[in-house]
């Protein structure tokens, strides 16, 4: 991996990670009224995961639980309105008063988008697995960190 050869890339990606995650969250929540949305957020998170893989950093590994959770969420959101006699995917909208932030308005599209995000990220994880780029486990990560710290 490049990260092993280039500490600059590794450090850069490590630094960029929280910022990119923040952007992902922004896109996720902004989606309803501005450009963004669950798919876009999923792509940002996916890119973060891939970059961290390239740099040899830790990353989430569980594609299948994430995939299952995503499918469960979208289908649950889709089917839930049937329980109270509405059609499939009927939107429910509510708003709550939150201190500091003020009135927050959202609907069942938000969990639906969450499911979309989860599936997109799971697809990226699956692709990484499929390409044979295994994730670095915690223990391996610790060991590498120790070895890089002691070697010079």
């Amino acid at each position, binding site marked *: 991996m490049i990260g092993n050869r280039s500490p600059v890339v590794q450090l850069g990606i490590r630094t960029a990670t929280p910022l990119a995650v923040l952007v992902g969250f922004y896109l996720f929540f902004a989606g309803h009224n501005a450009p963004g949305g669950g798919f876009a957020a999923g792509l940002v998170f996916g890119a973060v995961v891939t970059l961290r893989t390239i740099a040899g950093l830790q990353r989430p590994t569980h594609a299948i639980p994430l995939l299952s959770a995503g499918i469960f969420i979208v289908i649950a959101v889709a089917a839930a309105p049937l329980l109270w006699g509405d059609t499939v995917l009927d939107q429910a909208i509510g708003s709550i008063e939150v201190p500091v932030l003020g009135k927050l308005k959202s609907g069942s599209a938000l969990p639906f988008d969450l499911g979309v995000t989860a599936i997109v990220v799971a*697809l990226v994880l699956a692709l990484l*697995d499929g390409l044979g780029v295994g994730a670095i486990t915690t223990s391996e990560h610790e060991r590498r960190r120790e070895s890089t710290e002691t070697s010079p």
Partner: protein
Amino acid sequence: MSADDLASGSILWTLLVLHLLAVPLSAWVARFDHRAGLGVAAIAPALTAIWASVLLIDSTNPFVTELMWVEGLDVGVRFRADAIALLMTLLVSGIGTLVLVYAMGYFSTSSAQMPRMTAALLAFSTSMLGLVLADSIWTLFIFWEFTSITSFLLVGHKDVDASVRDAARRALMITGAGGLSLLAGLLILGAESGTTSLTDLAPIDGGRAWVAALLILGGVATKSAQVPFHVWLPGAMKAPTPVSAYLHSATMVKAGVLLLAITGPAFTDVTTWKVVGLALGISSMLWGGITSLRHQDAKLILAWGTISQLGLLVTLLSVGTAKATFAAISILFAHAIFKAALFAVVGEIDIRTGTRDIRELGGLSRTMPIATAVAVVSGLSMAGVPPLLGFAAKEAAVEAALKLSGTDALIVSTSIIVGSVITVAYTTRFLLGTFGAGPDTTVAPRRPAMTIATTVLGLGSIVGYIAINAVNGIVGPAAVEINAKADVYSLYRWPGITTAFLVSAAIVAVGVALGLFILRRVDQPAPGARGADLVDHGLDRFLAWAPQPIARIQHGSLPVYLATMGLVALTATIPFVREVDTDSLVLWDNAFQGALAVAIIGAAAAGAFVNSRLGAALTLGAVGLGVTGLFVVHGAPDLALTQLLVETIIVVGFVLGLGHLGRSFPSAHATWKGVRVGVSVLCGVGVMFGLAASASNPSGTPPIEQLAEAAVEEGGGNNIVNVILTDLRALDTLGEVVVLAVVALGILALANTSDTEATT
């Protein structure tokens, strides 16, 4: 609670949900104790049977309940509880309950397969319930297929035995093929009669009606084991007896007959329907009866007898007169009761003596008195001897046969009479062979659960005769649902000395004589399963041959796959070429677009000829960024954002991949390279034509106004694009993310198998 309260959709849905919840629950309980598991499974069918009988006795008005999914396409689940549906519900759930009780005795040990068996039995019961209550062609078809699948699981219970697996596969293949035929037939029927409702079907005629009739009869004949599709049914006797008694005599094989009855009114003007139906019915009735006379295995005697009886039902329904329809429904009801009882007795004999061969059985009337009594009562009911329910039903059939007039009357009525003689003959042989004299068989102790269930089923034939008015109250309205003119008929305890009665008496006399004559010939060899072998052989040959064409189509070359897909997709754009309105085309709205287009085309062309992998990645990135630029110029920030993010992740992916691959592409033959470039250019041009055509043919005004309004009001968001994705057209998004999820699963599966395959 009165019957009117019970006649509601919510009760029906509750019962169905109860079934569905009990499926996993009973399987879980069966892991610890198989009897308790079966007991849990029996609760929902028992409640349903009580519900159906209350509604039948009070003869409430039919009611419809539905769960609509896609309103515009009329796609949803719709049930209609009318007289015939409730009659079938009573059979499905009532016999289902008894079979589950019977199974508590039949399965003595808690084997590892019991959870699957229990769950599959209840799942079958649920599917069958949905099938008989279905009112739309979609609902009917879905539950029809569920019964095929659960039947496959149930037949293949003893999956360690290769012959059992073959039998299960044969049953699935034949009924599955029939299911596809049925789907095609139902689609034509629905389109022609303009409704998806099975009760509103209007009579159709013409060429399409002819095709639909044949296709639906294909479904009927495979499911109800009509000659020549009957070969799966004798094989299915390898299933445990509770399964045979439930699926392959009382309920599932009746699904075809039910379908014939409820779609019949649509085909009253189609001669093919009647002619083919009669041909199927008569040949099954006679061939099933004759083969039944040649078997030594009591269970196979009954199985072939079932084919014969189903043939009689198909014949009567194909005749189509009101009297014949009434007779068919009566026999359907009586047959379910006596045949389930007979199967249950044979299963008990099998369990307690270890054999089902009528030559080896003897002295059972002494050692198994209750089973003998049940078998004799049910057998006589099958033969049509008073004072039993089968007699009353058979009288109706003989009367209907004698009343026929017209050219086909002679053939049909003769066949029904000959079929009845054979029925009496194989019943005589079955009863005397199994329970008559013979070498004394050692008998294991009685199992109460089996005795309870068989006794109740056996009493059914007697109670049905005594309470003939109650039976009329059930059967009569059901027949009227199919043929409105059937309301004048009813079953009689004692019809008096009529012509029909004299004919019946003659049938019984000749039949008994024939049965006694054949019973003497004990050494005749049982017929081989030639038809079944032929099917198995054909399937094996097909499976052996299939890898060759598959290897040719699935050759594993990615460029060839892409080129093939591109060319196929290209054909879809051909109709658009002539639709392009050249006058409406403008060069550009904005000079930036021109500049970006030149850059995109240039980058794409460079990408086609560049040799290094990094160069190709860069040119593709340039194309993507150029397209993003186009979106920005056009004022579509959402598309631009998504495109940019996709480009980003692709670049990251390239970085990941390039580390593992060589610097440049492997050298390819010039011709092949030419083909690839050619296909790519053609695809691009095709997409261009498609877009130009759709832009020059706007159908009506763009819905932007409504969408903008709906986005804020229904979706509660100001970003129309995203509200479309997550709310207004969320069903599309749901479909798309499910595709993504399937792709992810596929990749994971491939990633996991490649290691193991590489080593083998």
